[in-house]
């Protein structure tokens, strides 16, 4: 929202020692967030009014003229033309001797041909003729909205001078001063006034400035006016709870035309486009008071106006040419025949004012904020009016805005407007204030500073609250315009703290009981595992929690298996992922052109509505750990990632086993995929990516991945995994063995079989596996080394041999193994 300082000055006399920047800073520190402070004078620097004294044809260009322009006041400074005038080359096709024009002198900022960014004017030579500035079109200085003109014309200020004798349009005057554009604008962050309906206006901001600087604020001038003693208008509110105040009046003898200069200028300063006098005035009063107003063409509306819920399938074409389908959750304004406006949001096109309008219906109403908000988000239509109404405006404001409009309309109308009898329906108690009682020490306790009664009363009074005392209590009367945001004691505390100034509060260190902090084991483990992984060369690469339809197609994932996002803005965020692996494959793809060796990991939540969850009423969303290994032309990527997996389990001494995967997801290699099990629980998988996915992604080498449920893992890490046993100090010894077994027998089975043969086998390490024709089809040779230890006394070689033979026997029995 834009706030004009000149407008504020109409309500408050601001002493000269307070600069516009001071005001901006204090507003920031005490009230609202300011996005930008705009010094309009700077925008118009080095621009003056000039009078064209002489026009000659440019000797070298048909369409250009050489003008001698007088900027009297600055005589002697710019003696760069003839006869105390400055010489400017100009292409305008409406140049005339004696014309008052806007002259941009060197150093001024203009938009070339009214387009692009502002650029600085310099002295120049145009086709060999010197030019000491520029005679501007309104587009070139950003004033087109106020002074619309034909293409090729320069801004002619003669008319404005004639119509506005108060403006000092004379040669040499600063343009910004002459046109009263020397304002200072604050761009206030709308989010910072979400809770302050009273601040959506100049008068509201002025009230804050008056409190902050302790300056007196003038009342808004509301002059009584005469009305006729009749009206043909009838109004009827069908939903009392959605409309607290509806004031409407027919004003006759309207002349729709261009707004006077001052009004157009005010709107321009607030970054609004002037339209016509009737509409501009309504907008102006809204910016002034905060009360949105609407005007209908009385000739296009039947005499009876209803404030009611829309009927299903009712439609309206709005002022911005959109056809909206309405439903019964929406409050509308209708005449006897059809909707004429969506209440508080936007008017209908058919009932709007036009150049044929002879009389208008002026509406000043108060609608329910939540209802407006619902409708406005449903229709995706947000207007200046709806932004204000949805914050729940003070219903007492209707009257103020209403009177201001009529007063100003009378002022700017040449015709004698006639005001019919006013129709007013009120569903609220007028001027009803609120009361909050607060224990005196409550305020000090919450702020941490001892305020005196006087200080507190002083601050609250400046904010237009009334304060009385009753023993140890303040009784605070809340003005009507603050009822929406001051509801509890804490709200009053905020008022005192912010006006006093948060930066003035002395800081008190926080002391508290010494309590051991609650341990977060998951986070402890997460840190540990991450550190191990980076030690192993793995990089933490985040990926999104979302999957797109494209991902689903590519990785052949069924849509119904995933949780869907209801309102994704981006197509990349349609589904929630149930695994991290896909994200890591996508990350692999991003790096594959730059790196030959890619090692990635991520610990993040994944989402699955089919699994059990620890949070009540919410889907499963455990943290998973995913690791991916890719080495260009690397044969054993999967075994490398398997080693990492086992390292991680080993650091927590968690025992697990592998089990053949039953349902391999479509993106994993069905023959190179295995489940990671603890007890009966699947905790994750180890796999290669499916070759068809790899070929779709043009990845030429195999990719190894594993993914585990990190929260399961954490749970098992908390169990008693370490059982210390006194160990034998007797020297250990080693022996190798090579056997031939069926190919389908996996190492895990062999190892377990060997292990259970004797408690004196302390380590088993495979060192060779091969297949060849000699061994036979479907067979493999496997060689491993066993370490023997854990003896009570030094073993004899027969003892070791016995174990070795037992191992062989067991392998023969269980797997039909043959010694090689």
């Amino acid at each position, binding site marked *: 929202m834009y706030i004009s300082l000149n407008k504020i000055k109409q309500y408050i006399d601001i002493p000269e020692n307070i600069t516009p920047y001071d005001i901006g800073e204090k507003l920031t520190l005490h009230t609202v967030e300011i996005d930008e402070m705009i010094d309009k004078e700077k925008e118009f620097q080095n621009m003056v009014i000039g009078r064209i004294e002489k026009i000659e044809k440019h000797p070298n260009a048909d369409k250009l003229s050489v003008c001698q322009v007088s900027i009297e006041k600055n005589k002697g400074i710019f003696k760069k033309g003839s006869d105390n005038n400055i010489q400017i080359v100009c292409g305008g096709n409406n140049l005339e001797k004696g014309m008052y024009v806007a002259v941009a002198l060197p150093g001024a900022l203009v938009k070339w041909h009214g387009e692009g960014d502002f650029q600085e004017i310099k002295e120049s030579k145009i086709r060999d003729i010197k030019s000491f500035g520029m005679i501007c079109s309104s587009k070139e200085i950003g004033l087109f909205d106020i002074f619309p003109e034909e293409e090729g014309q320069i801004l002619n200020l003669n008319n404005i001078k004639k119509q506005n004798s108060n403006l000092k349009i004379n040669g040499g005057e600063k343009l910004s001063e002459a046109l009263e554009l020397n304002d200072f604008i604050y761009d206030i962050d709308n989010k910072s006034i979400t809770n302050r309906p009273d601040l959506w206006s100049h008068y509201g901001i002025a009230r804050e400035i008056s409190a902050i600087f302790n300056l007196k604020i003038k009342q808004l001038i509301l002059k009584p006016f005469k009305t006729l003693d009749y009206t043909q208008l009838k109004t009827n509110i069908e939903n009392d709870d959605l409309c607290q105040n509806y004031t409407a009046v027919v004003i006759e003898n309207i002349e729709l035309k261009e707004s006077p200069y001052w009004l157009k200028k005010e709107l321009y300063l607030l970054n609004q486009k002037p339209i016509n006098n009737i509409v501009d005035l309504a907008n102006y009063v809204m910016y002034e008071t905060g009360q949105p107003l609407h005007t209908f063409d009385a000739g296009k509306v039947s005499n009876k106006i209803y404030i009611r819920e829309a009927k299903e399938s009712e439609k309206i074409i709005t002022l911005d040419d959109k056809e909206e389908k309405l439903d019964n959750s929406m409050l509308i304004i209708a005449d006897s025949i059809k909707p004429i406006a969506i209440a508080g949001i936007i008017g209908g096109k058919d009932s709007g004012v036009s150049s044929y309008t002879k009389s208008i219906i002026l509406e000043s109403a108060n609608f329910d904020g939540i209802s407006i908000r619902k409708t406005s988000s449903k229709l995706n239509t947000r207007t200046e009016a709806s932004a204000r109404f949805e914050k729940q405006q003070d219903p007492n404001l209707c009257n103020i805005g209403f009177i201001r409009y009529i007063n100003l309309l009378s002022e700017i109308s040449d015709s004698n407007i006639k005001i019919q009898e006013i129709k007013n329906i009120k569903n609220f108690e007028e001027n009803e204030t609120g009361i909050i009682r607060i224990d005196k020490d409550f305020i000090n306790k919450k702020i941490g500073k001892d305020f005196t009664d006087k200080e507190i009363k002083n601050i609250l009074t400046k904010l237009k609250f009334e304060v009385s005392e009753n023993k140890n209590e303040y009784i605070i009367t809340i003005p009507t315009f603050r009822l929406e945001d001051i509801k509890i004691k804490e709200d009053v505390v*905020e008022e005192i703290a912010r006006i006093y100034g*948060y930066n003035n509060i002395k800081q008190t260190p926080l002391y508290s009981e010494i309590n051991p902090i609650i341990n977060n084991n998951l986070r402890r483990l997460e840190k540990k595992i991450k550190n191990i992984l980076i030690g192993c060369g793995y990089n933490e690469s985040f990926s999104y929690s979302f999957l797109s339809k494209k991902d689903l197609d590519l990785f052949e994932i069924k849509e119904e298996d995933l949780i869907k996002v209801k309102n994704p803005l981006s197509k990349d965020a349609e589904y929630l992922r149930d695994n991290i692996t896909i994200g890591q494959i996508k*990350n692999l793809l991003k790096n594959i052109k730059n790196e030959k060796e890619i090692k990635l990991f991520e610990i993040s939540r994944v989402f699955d509505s089919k699994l059990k969850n620890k949070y009540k009423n919410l889907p499963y969303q455990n943290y998973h750990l995913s690791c991916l290994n890719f080495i260009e032309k690397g044969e054993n990527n999967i075994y490398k990632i398997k080693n990492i997996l086992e390292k991680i389990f080993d650091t927590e001494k968690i025992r697990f086993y592998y089990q053949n995967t039953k349902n391999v997801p479509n993106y994993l290699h069905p023959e190179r995929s295995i489940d990671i099990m603890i007890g009966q629980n699947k905790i994750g998988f180890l796999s290669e990516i499916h070759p068809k996915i790899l070929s779709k992604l043009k990845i030429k080498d195999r990719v190894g991945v594993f993914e585990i449920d990190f929260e399961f893992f954490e749970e098992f890490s908390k169990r008693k995994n370490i059982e210390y046993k006194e160990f034998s100090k007797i020297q250990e010894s080693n022996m190798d063995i090579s056997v031939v077994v069926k190919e389908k027998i996996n190492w895990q089975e062999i190892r377990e079989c060997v292990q259970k043969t004797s408690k004196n086998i302390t380590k088993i390490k495979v060192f060779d596996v091969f297949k060849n024709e000699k061994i036979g089809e479907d067979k493999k040779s496997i060689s491993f080394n066993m370490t023997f230890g854990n003896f009570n006394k030094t073993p004899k070689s027969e003892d070791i041999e016995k174990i070795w033979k037992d191992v062989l026997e067991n392998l023969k029995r269980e797997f039909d193994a043959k010694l090689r």
Partner: protein
Amino acid sequence: MVEKLKKLKENIENQIKDLKNKEDLEALYKETLGKKSDFNKILRSLSDLSIEEKKEIGPIANEIKNEINKIFGSKRLELENEEINIKLKKDKIDLTLDINKEEAGSLNPITKIQYELEEIFKGMGFAIYDGPELELDYYNFESLNIPKHHPARDMQDTFYINKEQVLRTQTSNLQVRAMREFGAPLKVIMPGKVYRNEDLDACHEHTFHQLEGVVIDKNINLSHLISTMNLVISKIFNREIETRVRPGYFPFVEPGIEIDIKCTICGGKGCPSCKNTGWLEILPGGLVHPNVIKAGDLDPEEYSGFAFGLGLTRLVMMRYGISDIRDFMSGDLRFIKQF
């Protein structure tokens, strides 16, 4: 005789100097001190002398023998050292060469800074709390004093799963959960991932990280909040940093504040990073709204508290001068490996 021996010693000394290898040295040794050597002959001839002469010459002869032995000893050591040195020289390799190079991996800078902050807060007695990202509307909004159709919902574009469930838009979703789980007094931080339904560009991400903190106890006030926040900021930046406090609106705190720091890039003069204000928004916070304390099953008459939120992603961008917010989630190793 003594003269002879001394002469012999001198001779040996001269000969030994030029020797280049151990074999020659041992040959010389044999020649000079061996059984058949002149030296031995002279010593043997001692027996022909009188007892007085023996007494006089014997020790001298022995001493000379010892001296000669010593000369040989040190020459032997010298030659051995030389030999080793030659071997060592042959061993020289280029240790700057990369053989089987293994790089360390990197943490995402978000994690790095998050862990750093966790240590700071743990040092101040804060626990670390974690909770759901797919959250009930109740915890993300309603319990935080943001009912349905509250205008404050506009401040955040929300991913809805259904009417009841949303992707959390803020780590504040854990305020009420933490209160319900641990009661009071409470001192926790909740770092984590949050989501906003936005289109991506260099300044906007739909996935980013925050760190929320809550303190609940008896008699907590604004003065405590401001003091603690200043402490936290000085710890984060590892130096005293000028701050200012101004009002800010968040429905779950009352009063609500924003803490700005003097722009770390321009030092307060005004630059594009601070939108020419000289200040950077860094820490929103406030006293926990009594409705939120109530939602946390605590009595707002008895307990008060403060909450604050830190834009972790923004902080990391500031710390390292990262200009594109999308880099964090890109998985690009050219980005990650720098940390």
